[in-house]
């Protein structure tokens, strides 16, 4: 082959491939965002979509640190929160209209958030990025606790428990959007989500983005190709802080309020789960994770009070059985179907799916029956008109039989795969 390779251009993907792999997905993503308002969605849908947009940017920014940079952070919400707080103050400055703020459109607030997150990243990253690994993780934990505690001490910036609130319908209108009604906010969120996604994708294509991956893989070797890994980590950390701040700025406009909870360990843990469940080795992984987990967080609690338990099970299942996350499952499936023997692959895949669904069914019956038993309000789990009390033998049959069948089927699918 080497004889036929005449120049470097042959090594790079062709223009067509570039379009298919890089431009097209972004175009499709933008087209979906553009099409959503056409179907006349409800407020709930809009609200969820906004939350998803914000979480997509937030989770992607987290993955710049974890997936691309190999740094496990327990305090990423600090940058989201500080960027958001700054944007919130800027919102109020715009309302006051004093000085330069009178001429800043509300639409550009996420840029203020970006600046806030990046500055916070620059200050906090300075001591913490000197080390990677567990040291970094522990520093991020300690810093997150300290900042959260500080949030309740400095009311002038954080507004105490009630936080800082503002009104987004001020300042100059951009693109004819007053940002009042929820469908106008949609365009704002959609615009910045696309900007955030493109921005972070572009970052992976820059020298610094590549060096970040190199540092993750082998920090020692990076030193011997002329780069300082600490500096690479530090710069990536600032950029990630900036994009987290961008998401914070989006949240500031969307919710018009920021409270200290936004800085706590809870959202920091949640963004970790979003990114990991989505798949940290893929650029799009955190997008999947953000969409799924945002949905779970806001909608699953309508159906079951044990939603945190299901979330825990999902997370552990992903860590144990699908470390490449949902994106890994999706791309693995696509590869398999395009593989040598798609029929057999699909068969195994369906079998495994069946097994997983059966196990899930057992789990759901177990959890729902137990939760009601534990509450003691005399309620009974009644799916599809069945009456599944804890004293009903059928309940326990419906737990054990599907669970065992599910385990057996999945095991068989795995064996077949090994054989294939």
């Amino acid at each position, binding site marked *: 082959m080497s004889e036929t390779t005449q120049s470097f251009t042959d090594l790079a993907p062709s223009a067509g491939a570039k379009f298919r792999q890089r431009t097209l997905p972004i175009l499709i993503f933008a087209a979906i965002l553009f099409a959503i308002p056409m179907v006349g969605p409800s407020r709930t849908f809009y609200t969820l979509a906004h939350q998803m947009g914000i979480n997509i940017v937030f989770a992607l920014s987290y993955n710049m640190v974890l997936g691309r940079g190999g740094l496990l952070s327990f305090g990423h919400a600090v940058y989201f929160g500080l960027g958001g707080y700054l944007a919130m103050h800027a919102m109020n400055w715009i309302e006051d209209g004093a000085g330069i703020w009178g001429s800043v459109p509300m639409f550009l607030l996420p840029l203020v958030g970006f600046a806030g997150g990046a500055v916070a990243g620059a200050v906090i990253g300075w001591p913490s990025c000197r*080390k990677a690994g567990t040291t970094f993780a522990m520093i991020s934990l300690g810093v997150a606790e300290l900042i959260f505690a500080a949030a309740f001490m400095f009311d002038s910036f954080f507004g105490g428990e009630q936080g800082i609130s503002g009104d987004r319908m001020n300042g100059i209108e951009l693109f004819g959007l007053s940002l009042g009604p929820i469908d106008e906010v949609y365009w704002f969120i959609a615009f910045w989500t696309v900007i955030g996604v493109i921005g972070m994708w572009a970052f992976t294509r820059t020298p610094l983005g590549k060096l970040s991956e190199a540092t993750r893989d082998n920090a020692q070797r990076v030193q011997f190709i002329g780069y300082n890994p600490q500096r690479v980590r530090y710069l990536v950390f600032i950029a990630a802080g900036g994009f987290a701040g961008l998401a914070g700025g989006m949240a500031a406009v969307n919710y018009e309020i920021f409270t200290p909870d936004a800085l706590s360990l809870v959202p920091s843990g949640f963004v970790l789960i979003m990114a*990991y469940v989505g798949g940290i080795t893929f650029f799009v992984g955190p997008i999947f994770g953000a969409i799924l987990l945002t949905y779970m967080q806001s909608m699953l609690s309508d159906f079951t009070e044990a939603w945190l*338990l299901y979330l825990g099970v999902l997370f552990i299942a992903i860590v144990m059985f699908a470390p490449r996350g949902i994106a890994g499952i999706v791309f693995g499936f696509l590869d398999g179907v395009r593989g040598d023997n798609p029929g057999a692959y699909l068969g195994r895949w369906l079998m495994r799916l069946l097994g997983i669904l059966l196990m899930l069914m057992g789990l759901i019956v177990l959890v729902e029956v*137990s939760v009601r038993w534990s509450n003691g309000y005399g309620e009974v789990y009644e799916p599809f008109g069945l009456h599944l009390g804890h004293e009903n033998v059928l309940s326990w049959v419906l737990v054990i039989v599907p669970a065992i069948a599910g385990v057996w089927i999945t095991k068989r699918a795995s064996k077949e795969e090994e054989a294939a």
Partner: protein
Amino acid sequence: METIVFGLLNGVSYGLLLFMLSSGLTLIFSMMGVLNFAHAAFYMLGAYFAFTITGSSSFWIALFIAPVLVGLVGAVVERYGLRRVHPNGHVAELLFTFGLAYLIEEVVKIVYGKTAVDYRVPELLDFAAFEIYGASFPAYRIFVIFIAVAMLVGLWFLLKRTRAGLIIQAALTHPHMVGHLGHNVPFIFMMVFGIGCALAGLAGVMAGNIFVTDPAMAVQMGPIVFVVVVVGGIGSLEGAFLASLLIGLLQNFAVGINLKFAEIFGFLGMSDLSEVGRISVSSLAPVLPFLLLVLILIFRPQGLLGEKEL
């Protein structure tokens, strides 16, 4: 004088409680490299198991059985969960325990209900041991100190005087060496994880009735254990002991100091009307450990007595 005596007494008793909780994590972390986020969840299990056993028999039986049960749960978790995740690296292991903490809390809520259970100090020890400056010091706290010291001695004996202990000790400082020694590494890991969890369970048995036994107790204690382990230094039980006492004393003495920043830094022109000036040392006490954690990691990453960096 009162401040000093109270600070010492409470600092030591709280510090020893922290040591009970963190010694297990030190073992696990040093040897397996797993930052067990679910450690505090095992502590909670200890308290709940003790509550159940106390209900059907007595506290004294619970004192022995509950930690063993927690240890068994830990061993099972290691065998069927952690071991599977191990090939994917430390981050995956850490995330596994992260999810496990969620899961244990939710299961506890289903089994024991969402609110606090009535887990009491045993009647035998429910009296004031002595009284100083009008405040009584409960006998149970003395018992806690006694148990913690006994545990320290027991651990020390196990590590320095038994063959298994020597292997574990070697593994603490040189984890990669143990495989070469021809020992059954997975089995050792399972044992260490189980023992570590049992120690957390013991702490739960002891602390659940001093504090409140409810599903939030794990989240409450979670982060502070890491502080102890990291500040103490990897592979060093002595370090964890020192760090526990240090943090216990630091917090308790800070509570006794009513000075505000404005009074300390008044010479810099700080007024007690400013937000920074209004902060008092005692109000900072509970966040001091985290400050200590960050400072230690920046200036002495190997911890107080650790031999290697994280």
